[in-house]
């Protein structure tokens, strides 16, 4: 189809503001699905594809409206996938920004709107749920106008639930969103904005053709990674998979690659043909790097092989997940895993526990550090235990956080952000009632309990989103914990020098409570390098006997001792000291308010 009859767009919204419902209505109104076929949140359903023996979620659906081809591109809904979201947005020329008429602008609205603006998209603002009794469409529209500029009157008012105003949205997409502007005669180039894995057909890439034409059966190459494959099938979703002979400039669709390894095809890379290769890839490819790390250990050490298999399977569908074996004195065999962010970590952990029925111990997360040693070599450190001893300087990742709160909580939020080494950037009032605060914060200060603290200090009203802005030098030290003089790997932390004393004290106090008394005095110390900053002693036991042992029932006494022996075997040996696994967990969760 000629490019001036094509529109590519996304729907962006804060969670639960109605993105999926709007997508469903669009499919209905355009007769892409009949009412009988219509099911709630079709874009999120995998069952349809399953009927065809293939389990690929539709990432982009093609609908026809008044002689135009509209491609609705789904975006991952969460902040950790900012990079993926931005790739999806890059495949579009415009975005429908949906805001709940009762809730108004939220943190994700802000983050997504900024991303869309950064990607030069035309924003089409929509206030949804105007049918709700609590709806305040004018207030929400005013907040949007404040956020993205423009007039509140231009904001569309709809109810995705009742269908009111949907046609006007589609008309506006055609009128206000620009058509694609690629070159149809140029060597083919397509942006991979998402990918999926199917066990029968391998990696399926979701692409936006920018220039030229791709044809089924052609030899294709990913320009940044150099991966080569044959385009086994091209096509699009409408809403089910429809094979097509070709994908032309401006169109959105899928490519079945037959590749068996998701990591060989990265989101953001550019596809071209081997026959007529493009000279330059599309801009913007970057290798996404995990920023948050944590150790995953099976509670039952026999489950280690199952955890390994589960991670292998997850990895097939999640190219961003990385992992490597880790051995901890305290927790035994496990894996150190890298995640894009906190939510990604939560999702992986949940999938491992739910889909693979694993019982996991997850250590407190830490961030990636870039370390320059005294001899000038640079290393990236993912585990405090791996910190080199001779450090020149350490850089840590920083985020730009947008926090939206009712104005009465601005004070508590600033206090929290300042406590966490935050640098205030600016504040704007979205309305008389609500403000957005922009802070730069070290990611390390956010990974453990920042969100919980934020929620509890604002009685749940704050919404929060962030993106990574780069690495910066920090006054960071490695805090070691020594039990009876032995450093304990699992308890090492990288921490800002100013909080080292307090944290060291807390660790040592907690360990003194958690480690049972031994047959000798056990000193517990927190140290920076060779300097001890906190110390406690677990006093030796004075008594440990089975009081009574008479009458002939020796079996019972023997079993008691055997029970104790078993209990000991579950303990972790740190030098001569036996430390129960629970003690490590208590300490690892020191900052974790039950999350």
């Amino acid at each position, binding site marked *: 189809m000629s490019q001036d009859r094509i529109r590519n767009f996304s729907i962006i919204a804060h969670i639960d503001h109605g993105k999926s419902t709007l997508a469903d209505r669009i499919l209905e109104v355009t007769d892409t699905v009949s009412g009988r076929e219509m099911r709630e949140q079709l874009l999120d359903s995998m069952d349809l594809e399953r009927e065809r023996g293939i389990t690929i979620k539709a990432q982009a659906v093609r609908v026809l409206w008044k002689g135009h081809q509209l491609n609705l591109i789904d975006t991952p809904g969460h902040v950790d996938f900012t990079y993926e979201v931005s790739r999806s947005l890059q495949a579009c020329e415009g975005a429908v920004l949906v805001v709940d008429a009762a809730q108004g602008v939220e943190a994700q609205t802000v983050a997504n709107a900024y991303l869309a603006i950064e990607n030069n998209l035309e924003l089409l603002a929509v206030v949804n749920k105007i049918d709700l009794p609590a709806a305040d469409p004018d207030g929400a529209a005013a907040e949007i106008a404040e956020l993205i500029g423009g007039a509140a009157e231009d904001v569309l008012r709809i109810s995705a639930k009742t269908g009111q105003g949907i046609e006007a949205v589609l008309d506006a997409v055609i009128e206000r969103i620009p058509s694609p502007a690629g070159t149809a005669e140029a060597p083919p180039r397509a942006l991979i904005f998402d990918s999926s894995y199917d066990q029968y057909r391998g990696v399926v890439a979701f692409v936006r053709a920018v220039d030229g034409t791709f044809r089924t059966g052609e030899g294709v190459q990913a320009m940044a990674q150099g991966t080569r494959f044959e385009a086994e099938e091209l096509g699009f979703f409408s809403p089910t998979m429809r094979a097509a002979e070709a994908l032309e400039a401006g169109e959105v669709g899928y490519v079945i690659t037959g590749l068996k390894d998701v990591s060989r095809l990265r989101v953001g890379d550019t596809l071209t043909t081997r026959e007529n290769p493009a000279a330059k890839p599309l801009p913007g490819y970057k290798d996404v790097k995990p920023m948050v790390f944590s150790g995953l250990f099976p509670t039952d050490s026999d489950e280690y092989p199952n955890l390994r298999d589960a991670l292998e399977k997850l990895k097939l569908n999640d190219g961003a997940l990385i992992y490597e074996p880790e051995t901890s004195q305290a927790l035994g065999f496990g894996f150190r895993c890298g995640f894009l962010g906190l939510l990604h970590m939560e999702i992986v952990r949940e999938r491992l526990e739910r889909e693979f029925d694993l019982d996991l111990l997850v250590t407190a997360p830490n961030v990636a550090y870039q370390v320059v040693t005294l001899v000038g070599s640079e290393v990236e450190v993912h585990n405090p235990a791996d910190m080199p001893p001779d450090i020149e300087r350490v850089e840590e990742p920083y985020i730009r956080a947008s926090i939206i709160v009712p104005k009465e909580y601005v004070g508590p939020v600033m206090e929290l952000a300042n406590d966490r080494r935050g640098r205030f950037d600016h504040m704007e009032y979205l309305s008389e009632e609500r403000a957005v605060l922009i802070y730069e914060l070290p990611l390390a200060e956010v990974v453990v309990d920042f969100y919980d603290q934020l929620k509890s200090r604002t009685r749940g009203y704050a919404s929060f989103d962030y993106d990574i802005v780069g690495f910066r030098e920090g006054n960071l030290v490695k805090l070691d914990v020594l039990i009876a003089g032995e450093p304990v790997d699992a308890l090492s932390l990288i921490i800002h020098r100013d909080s080292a004393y307090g944290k060291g004290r807390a660790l040592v106090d907690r360990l003194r409570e958690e480690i049972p008394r031994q047959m000798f005095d056990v000193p517990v110390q927190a140290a920076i390098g060779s300097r001890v900053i906190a110390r406690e002693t677990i006093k030796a036991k*004075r*008594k440990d*006997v089975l*009081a009574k042992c008479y009458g002939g*029932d020796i*079996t019972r006494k*023997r079993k008691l001792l055997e029970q104790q*022996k078993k209990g000991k075997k579950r303990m972790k040996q740190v030098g001569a000291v036996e430390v129960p696994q629970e003690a490590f967990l208590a300490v690892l969760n020191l900052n974790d308010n039950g999350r």
Partner: protein
Amino acid sequence: MSGVRHLYVHLPFCAHRCGYCDFVTVVGRRGEHGPYVQALLAELELERPLLAPRLETVFVGGGTPTFTDEHELRRLLSALPPAAEVTVEANPETVTPEMATLLLECGVNRVSLGVQTFDSALLSVLDRVARPDDVRRAFYHLRDARFDNISLDLIYGIPGQSSAALDADIEKALALGPEHLSCYELEAKPGTRFTHRHGEELGRQAEALEGYFERVVERLTEAGYRWYETANFCRPPQADGGLDLRSQHNLAYWLGRDYVGIGIGAVSTVSGLRWRNTPRLPVYTAVLAQGEAPPRELEELTGDVRRRERVMLGLRLDEPLLLDGLAPVMDAEALSRMERLELVARNADEGGGETLTLTPRGRLLGGGVTVELLA
């Protein structure tokens, strides 16, 4: 097989059940005393082939043996095989001059008196019937009847017991000059009514209680008693070659000898086989009335289990444990570690073998040390 020299007889009857007690006991049921003693005698007849003609020890425990109907008690004691040491457990309130005479007449030569404490308030906490005066009176009745081997049972670590109260208990016990003392720390089993009632108090006392065991050992050894087993103390033999005042019966358990136990819940260990009688009184009496052995739980003791028990029990004693043949169940690495911590000492024995002795501090931590040492 006819060589077992130690016999235990269980008399389960009690006037009431004390809150902390976890023995097999039966409250009241006066009417059952006769049939039960009849059953005991029947079981004794069944087991007699296992027993040596003359025994080293007989121990009649409970329950409260001296609460048993006097006629039935006499009938039982008279029927038991003769032995060098015959012990009967007694509660102070049951020891009248008549009871003392009965015991003596029936060949009993050692009485173990369940004192627990001399403190009236603490006696109530333990649900004990006896008052402090009953305790002393019982002791005097036994002495008047010429008993020259009396043991007192004390319990320490009672909810609300201060260290001063502990000292007072020890002094009052010492003032009576018993030949033998057993001092047990109170065990509050989780989930029992006693723990429910007193657990909080015990929690508050926990730190102070740690020192009580040490204090008991210190005070009794100062007074000249021999700390011959973790919880047991005796006067040393008289200079003129007097009796070894250790409990010879309990020593048999600790040294791994064979023994036969009769009565409900009683345990026997003979030639590597251990069995435990049903704890149910009606079943026991009914089956034995038919001349059959009572239902029993059987356990075969493998060589390693016997060796483990040997270590577990042997290390409770003050005499060196001969390590000969015990290597398979010992953790050599732990042994060296315990040695470095000065909790155990290894020595050569006259026969050229190696022995193991716990140091005084090692004995205070004996349970933990044993757990370490066993592979």
